[in-house]
């Protein structure tokens, strides 16, 4: 077994937090971080519960490829190695570069990558791995300019993992302590709060610049619309794009506002609604990789609908002038946008004509079902409550069913407590042993009982309560524990999920809430 294999099979370590100290000393410790120095004590006190100094020994894994994380790391001391997703063959030795100013990491990453071209293997690999089995865009969090199989080093003064933490992207790289490392782990709430502090505007700008420099180009290219843009156009976009964050409920664009920009969703969900009478009627929603604004810009009219953040949303804004440059320079993009305009206006018209259909979209947004890539639905008008589905599930999973035939009802449809296979699975964040995983490019989130230590992190994080705990003999802790289990869609079973296949009345189905027309068709059946 190679050292690399050994490394991959070892559960990631989460670093030892510094021994507890009194609050005043902890505050003083936080103040030793130069980027936090401008903050008032009160602000730091408020953020302190979500910021902890961690130490990693040389060789320890800080972040693992494919995982989801809710933590960004500010490197205080030591060197961290970023290993791009493994390529065929052994990874190359890390390229050591000299020390420099705090901002030099991004430059070094770029230098390490050399002059990467659009069709380079790294981008191809990111594109390959980034496209989910059903077309879901999973955008890389790390620099796509890094060559596949290469590794590079990050030095003190840099932040890493922030894109993953903010926009819930699966990690595209392993991050390993190259030397003994001290870093500040900043959880997402604190990270968002830090970025809002006026005193840290320079720090935020530095982070944004790094994203713009490292990742935005690849991000743009993974959006179908921009996939074919020439290098100079992408470069122009990279320079002019603005990065925006919105809190849940924030209005991003009001209906009838002047057409001023094109928006690309980096993370989170955005509601698209049109005003009808006193209420807003939901038309659709946008998610990672979706965009809006082309209608107003192309038709030179005010916004025909509003955009509202359903949760924390990260956007890329491209101003009107830059957008028009693209349209002028890339006829294919313009053509595609016009097609999109027609589709969106048709959607808007259909929603206004048939407002009842909009209730399902609203329900999906209110209940979080929009996250579901494969939501189990049972038509209770057909279901005879025979529970063959549950028995089939149990038979397929060693006697223990992975779902409960209970849940919320909408009209005559039940949404049982079965994993939705979310686009951005919250359950994957922070698993201490890497037992719960979703391989890049797949839809199924699975738990490996051989590695799980029954800490219940995943079941606590699942917002829908769809991870159930069952008594199970754990080979890890060598005793019977309540082990989290969840629907894995009978992964590996030739004919798909047993529950769907076995239902004698065809009452059970699975749908992706990404496909809203299909959802509406199903619910109105």
């Amino acid at each position, binding site marked *: 077994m190679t050292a690399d294999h050994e490394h991959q099979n070892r559960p990631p370590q989460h670093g030892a937090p510094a021994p507890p100290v009194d609050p005043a000393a902890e505050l003083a410790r936080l103040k030793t971080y130069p980027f936090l120095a401008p903050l008032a004590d009160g602000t730091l006190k408020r953020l302190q519960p979500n910021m902890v100094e961690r130490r990693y020994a040389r060789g320890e894994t800080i972040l693992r490829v494919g995982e989801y994380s809710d933590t960004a790391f500010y490197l205080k001391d030591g060197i961290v190695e970023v290993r791009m997703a493994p390529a065929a063959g052994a990874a190359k030795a890390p390229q050591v570069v000299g020390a420099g100013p705090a901002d030099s990491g991004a430059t070094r990453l770029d230098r390490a990558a050399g002059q990467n071209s659009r069709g380079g293997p790294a981008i191809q690999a990111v594109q390959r791995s980034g496209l989910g089995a059903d077309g879901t865009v999973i955008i890389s969090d790390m620099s796509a300019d890094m060559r596949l199989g290469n590794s590079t080093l990050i030095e003190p003064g840099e932040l890493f993992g922030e894109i993953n933490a903010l926009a819930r992207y699966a990690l595209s790289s392993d991050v390993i302590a190259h030397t003994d490392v001290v870093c500040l782990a900043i959880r997402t709430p604190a990270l968002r709060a830090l970025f809002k502090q006026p005193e840290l505007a320079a720090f935020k700008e530095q982070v944004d610049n790094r994203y713009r420099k490292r990742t935005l180009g690849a991000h743009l290219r993974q959006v179908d619309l921009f996939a074919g843009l020439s290098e100079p156009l992408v470069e122009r976009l990279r320079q002019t794009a603005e990065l925006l964050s919105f809190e849940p409920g924030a209005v991003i664009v009001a209906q009838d506002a002047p057409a001023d920009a094109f928006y690309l969703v980096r993370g989170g969900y955005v509601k698209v609604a049109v005003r009808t009478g006193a209420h807003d009627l939901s038309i659709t929603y946008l998610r990672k990789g979706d965009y809006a604004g082309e209608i107003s810009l192309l038709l030179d009219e005010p916004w025909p609908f509003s955009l509202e953040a359903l949760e924390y949303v990260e956007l890329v804004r491209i101003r009107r002038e830059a957008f028009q440059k693209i349209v002028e320079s890339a006829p294919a993009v313009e053509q595609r946008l016009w097609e999109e305009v027609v589709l969106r206006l048709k959607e808007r018209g259909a929603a206004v004509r048939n407002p009842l259909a909009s209730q399902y979209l609203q329900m999906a947004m209110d209940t979080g079902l929009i996250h579901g890539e494969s939501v189990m639905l049972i038509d209770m008008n057909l279901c005879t409550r025979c529970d063959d589905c549950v028995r089939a599930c149990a038979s397929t999973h060693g006697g223990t069913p992975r779902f409960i035939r209970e849940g919320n*009802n909408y009209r005559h449809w039940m949404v049982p407590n079965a994993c939705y296979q979310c686009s951005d699975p919250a359950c994957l964040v922070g698993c201490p042993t890497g037992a719960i995983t979703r391989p890049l490019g797949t839809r199924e989130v699975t738990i490996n009982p051989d590695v799980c230590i029954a800490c219940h992190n995943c079941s606590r994080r699942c917002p829908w309560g769809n991870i159930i705990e069952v008594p199970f003999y754990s080979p890890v802790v060598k005793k019977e524990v309540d082990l989290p289990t969840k629907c894995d869609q009978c992964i590996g079973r030739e004919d798909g999920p047993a529950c769907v296949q076995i239902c004698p009345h065809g009452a059970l189905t699975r749908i992706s809430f990404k496909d809203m027309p299909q959802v509406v068709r199903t619910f109105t059946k």
Partner: protein
Amino acid sequence: MSPIRLDLPTALRPKRREWFNAFGGLAIAGLVVFVAIDFLYGWSPANLAGLVFGGLATALMTLEVLYALRRRLLVKPLNTGQAWLQVHVYGGTLAALFVLIHIGFRWPHGLFGLALFLLTILTTISGLFGVVLQKTVPTTLTSSIGVEAIYERIPDMVADLRTQADETIKGASDMLQRFYGSHVKPALAGPAVSFAYVMDVRSGRERLVTDFKGIQSFLAGDDKTRADQLQQLVTRKMDLEAHYTWQNVLRAWLLLHVPLAMLLFAAILAHIAAVWRY
């Protein structure tokens, strides 16, 4: 009153038109063959055509029996459960028709022949009764009852309601305590299968409302709130009990159908053995 509506037109409407067409075609073809042969040569269960139809009926009934086995081999990817059920329903009906063709649509001779004939008819009718139930009851349960519950958990859920009711009544006035003892407690007993819910899925609601209205006029302050909460608990219990009753019915018809089907299959085997032997 919300009785379970045995909506025959809905129940008889095929869920999968292609299955209906295919089996309908086979039924018509069988009848045409029977009429033609009967007209040309006369019909006998013992002639070649009669034996062929008897053999086809036996093959279909064997397939019917396999459906029960299929339900015990859930893990195996042997086509969809729905396809198996469609074959079971249409195949069973077609088998009954082929039995009738086999005997030339004549009253069977002998006690065993009569038993075989009656078992075929009763099994088919009980099966079709099940189809009607399965296509009718779920809709009524979904539209008329405000709760959804797993059958095995209903007794625990009702017990939980009793506990909640006992908590609610603590500290109540004597008047409400007496009402609780005489009306609420008995109403929270069970669950039991009740024929009343078979006749009317919302049975007993009007009486419940009247009883609680009656006591409300004698209550004041917190007791009014308590009475409201108790009424909600009893209403929920009634929902659960109606569910319990109808889920029982959805299971109980199998107690009629399956033994009949097993007897029929055994009788068919005996019939074949007897024909073979004698």
